[in-house]
């Protein structure tokens, strides 16, 4: 009895899958380690019963290769979503909910028009997997109100990227808007990873070093880096040197984003 009550309290996360999305399981694990309950739902099952979307507080588009990036990354999956679920999507966003799109999920969010800008081929035209350092622009000083729920306690964070189309593109007018409205979530910066492995800070050539953006008063977060791949101590390229200096971390910093999302709803109660 008690148990059920407890379970009920946990914020509910819906993680979409299907057509080549492939990070749904580790994303589910991250949200549940952070204290939520997460369901992986195939887009066709959601189309079959769109009503269930109203049961969730958090919607996640995980990383992957939806439709193999055919016709452009995120495009085909976003179109399918638009063609069948635009009404439910509007309803979801009208509530006090959170949404995250990671990597391919971010590409889907921009293709859906929920977030500004677009993502295209990396500057060197190649797929790249490496770690990057991020400045959490979304973490606003207290005096600025309506800071994004995703950012409490996150200033600088290092996460892995793995993508072929991660170069963020936006025109000047929209960029000014973005800055004014404090919608930049993350920028690539030179931090401990870049120093450790002597790497350039912005590997895909993103405009204004943008790695992630916010929408809907900071409730919707889209980002190219993968926080769900940075939740264990052994994920970081630094863990071996940390271990040799007896300074192994307990967990990866990526988990903070998921904890923030869950806590946002727990605090509300």
């Amino acid at each position, binding site marked *: 009895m008690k148990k059920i009550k407890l379970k009920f309290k946990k914020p509910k996360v819906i993680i979409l*899958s*299907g*057509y*080549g999305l*492939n*990070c749904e*399981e*580790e994303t589910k*694990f*991250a949200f549940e380690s952070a204290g939520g309950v997460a369901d992986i739902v*195939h887009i*066709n099952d959601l189309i*079959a019963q769109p009503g269930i979307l109203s049961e969730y507080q958090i919607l996640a588009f995980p*990383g*992957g*290769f939806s*439709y*193999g*990036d*055919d*016709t*452009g990354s995120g*495009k*085909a999956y976003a*179109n*399918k979503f638009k*063609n069948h679920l635009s009404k439910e999507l509007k309803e979801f966003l009208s509530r006090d909910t959170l949404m995250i799109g990671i990597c391919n999920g971010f590409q889907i969010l921009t*293709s859906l028009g929920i977030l500004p*800008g*677009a993502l*295209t*081929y*990396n*500057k*060197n*035209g*190649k*797929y790249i*997997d*490496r770690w990057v350092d991020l400045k959490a622009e979304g973490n606003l000083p207290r005096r600025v109100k309506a800071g994004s729920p995703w950012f409490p306690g996150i200033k600088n964070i290092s996460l*892995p990227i*793995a993508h*072929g189309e991660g*170069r963020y*593109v936006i025109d000047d007018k929209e960029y000014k808007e973005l800055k004014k409205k404090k919608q930049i979530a993350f920028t690539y910066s030179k931090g401990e990873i870049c120093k*450790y*492995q*002597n790497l350039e800070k912005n590997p895909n050539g993103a405009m204004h070093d943008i790695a992630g953006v916010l929408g809907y008063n900071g409730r919707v977060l889209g980002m190219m880096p*993968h926080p769900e*791949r940075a*939740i*264990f101590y*052994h*994920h970081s*390229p630094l863990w*071996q*040197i940390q*271990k*040799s*200096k007896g300074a192994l971390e307990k967990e990866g910093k990526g988990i903070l984003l998921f904890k923030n999302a869950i806590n946002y709803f727990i605090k509300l109660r």
Partner: protein
Amino acid sequence: MISRIYVIPKIKDSRERLFLKSWNSLNIQGKVKNIAIFDSYLIDSNLSNDQILQSAKMLTNPIIEKFSINEILKEAKKFNYILEIGFLPGVTDNVGNTARETIVDLLHLKKEVNLKVYTSKVFIISGTVKLKDIKEIASSLYNPLIERAYIADAKEIKKIRGLPLKAPEVILEKRTPVIIVSLRVPEEELIKIGREGILDANGERRGPLALDLASMKVIQKYFEKLGRDPRDIELESLAQTWSEHCKHTIFANPIDDIKDGLYKTYIKGATNEIRKLKGRNDFCVSVFSDNSGGIIFDDDFLITHKVETHNSPSALDPFGGAITGIVGVNRDTIGFGLGAKPIANVYGFCFGYPEDTRALYRDKEKTRKMLPPKRIMDGVIKGVNVGGNCSGIPTVSGFVKYDDRFKGKPLVFVGTVGLIPRKINGKLSHEKKAEAGDYVVVIGGRVGADGIHGATFSSVTMDSKSPATAVQIGDPITQKKLSDAIVKEARSMNLYNSITDNGAGGISCSVAEMAKECGGVFVDLEKVPLKYPGLSPWQIWISESQERMTLSVPKKKWDVFKRLMESRGVEATVIGEFTNSEKCLVKWEGKTIVDIDLEFLHNGLPKRPLESKSVIKTFSEPKIIKGSRTKILEELLADKNINSFSFISEQYDHEVQASSVLKPLSGPGRINTDAQVFRPVFSSKKGVILSAGLYPSYGDINTYHMAACALDTAIRNIIASGGTLSRLTILDNFCWCSSYDKGRLYELIEAVKACYKYSIGYRTPLISGKDSMFNDFKGYDEKGSPVAVSIPPTVLISAIGVVPDIKKIVSPEFKNAGDSIYLLGETFDELGASEYYKLLAGKNKNNSIGNNVPEVDLERNLKTYWALEEVIQKELIASSVSLISGGLAIGLAKASIGGMLGCKISLSDIPGKISGTDAALFSESQGRILVSVSPKHISGFEKIMKNISYEKIGQVSKNNKFIITDEKDKKIVDTNVKKLYDIYHNFSNTMQ
């Protein structure tokens, strides 16, 4: 109506840079001023203009792209040439399929609506280029086996107002579906049928059956007994099932006095003995019986592993060959037991040198040019990239080797590790059995003319008769949908009794294989879904079109299964029924076209006793260069066989599934690791560790020691990183050449015997293996004179083990200045065929690679490895690198580069027996590991090491000087880490 939608980039397109870079390497530097790349969607439909407009909008991202319908001239602005690259009719067009699906979805059309989408890339080129330059560019961009190129200059395009609106439809001429092949013919004809294939109505041979005279005669007799002539499809079916590729005849047949053949006696034999020796510690669960080998991970899970080769297809179509290789071996995982989940990919490439541009031709007339090594390398790397990345499977482990003799046929190793619960719904997950009465169900991709005679083709030498259709095109997403639907849903719903992969031989093999489980099968061939009409039954039966699996589904579960597959976008079709008739029966439009006894199909292949003849090879010793060893070390480090391949590791996603522990690149200097570790089950601190070992050049001298060293290296790499011998298994891949040659057979027996001896010695069972026995190329050189290129016989040993605690893992790079550096194991004058001697032989412009190839001392190495395991479990060492190609000097260089820390080393008393410093520096003696130990752990470390051969040889220094002194304390290597780092990553940097 046909219309074209052009999607046009509005912003700087970063693909341009890559194309310009590769075009400039075609000696047309500077001639190309500008290129623009348009994506073209050619749509053949009865859509209204408005519907086309809507579709165009949907295919365009307005922020970075714009579209144009049919009009290209205005958009292209000023240009000299237009080059369009599209697919040949019938070739899978993945983007086209996706575009069609989205349009159907957007306009709410019926699935089967008459709507075809053909995609192509349109290059708009301006500059001082001439037609021949554009032709040059075109041939660097497309593969005539699967693609078409259209070239037109500005004038012509203006004349015809844009690109032609013509759909590349498949037109197959009508043929009689089934022909009877008389075997009551002279021997010459029997031989011809076996070697070149069945004579078609149009007077052409269909391509190799790869059946020798003995086999043809057995078939002749079988049908004589039945009192009829075989139908073409029956011969094709037997050829597939009996092919070297499927039956592994070289390993199965008696050879010399080895009655049961090499496989049963030495490979399976070794595993059986080891399992007995291990008794209750045996952790093998399913070995050599299924698509992959399966071992215990923990109380709840099994892990599986399988390593395949895809050499022949990769030689013809590097991208297609490699991508179908990797997604194909993924299916060996999905096809393990009731379906394992792919959790890691591995790769291994053996290429000709990319700088080698001497052309080879498949025909005397020099019309059919072989792809140059660079094209093969680029295509293969990209194939595994797309296959692995798109499937969401981390590519964690790999290697690259180079040798001139891989230019005829490259070796493309691809492997997949899987994870499966030990029990599913109370049943053991590795057991499966098709039941008589179950439906025969195929799911996934449709069947086309692609991939016909793949199995038989890879069983023969590649020459002018090699069939173009043997190439398959992969579509990872079709398979990803299939994989998720089976492994993540249908499996736990208990909806099928058995499952297997459709690989070599297509359904002819998969269905016949499963028929063994219940004792018969019946197939209605016209029920098989096709990509396009017009295929003959025999083609449908043996086509290797990709992304398909065959299942046995109980009738009462069919509806649920079908509905599930539909809702996941996976096509599922009933094509027949499993029976217990002891026959393989196939019908076409009601008529029986295959009627063969299972017994004959599977066991009718005549034994062909093989004979070997011993060969001993001796090579002259190389001329040694005097003076400083700094330059030699730097030249060795620059050799592609030792140089970093970070440009590959970085473009393969190795972190998806969030399991990464020891990555392909390690330390501040990002050196390639020799073993990799990942954590497949989040709730467990156990890990899986992978490595590989191979020394193709050693085989020139002695294949026994080549195999022994490969095995020792694979194991040593694992132990050096924190794995344990007690939880270690290995896989064998034999890639041989001209395997009916008695000398080559002798070398094969030697190599197999080494695997037998050392796998038993280390108690590491062989759990799976594969062979590819005919890696020979026969053709013509630039002068049109005949050439034959055969690969050096190569044994790849892959190792997979379970790590008790991932926290104990040790990476190879030096960690902290002041740590002491130890060399474990003994060094001898074993420089034969070493990287150092190959370098010298190259300088001497001869083949003086010496003769002292390294030998493996089992007892000594065992003691070393056990001690190493102990110090690692006690967390007493800071870094550990196994010494392989290039010896101690290269091991030191890698550890230093990896940690971006210098070192000061003295060679004064190296354990073992050596005649000079060159041996100390470059000998490739096995069983040696280089470790660094922090001062506070030295006593504990040395206490455990006291019973094995080891020596403290120096110290990690905080400055970046890299210094080695000889026994007389004379500096023989004096350089710095930054310089070594630049050399080590040089090739990779040029490949960015």
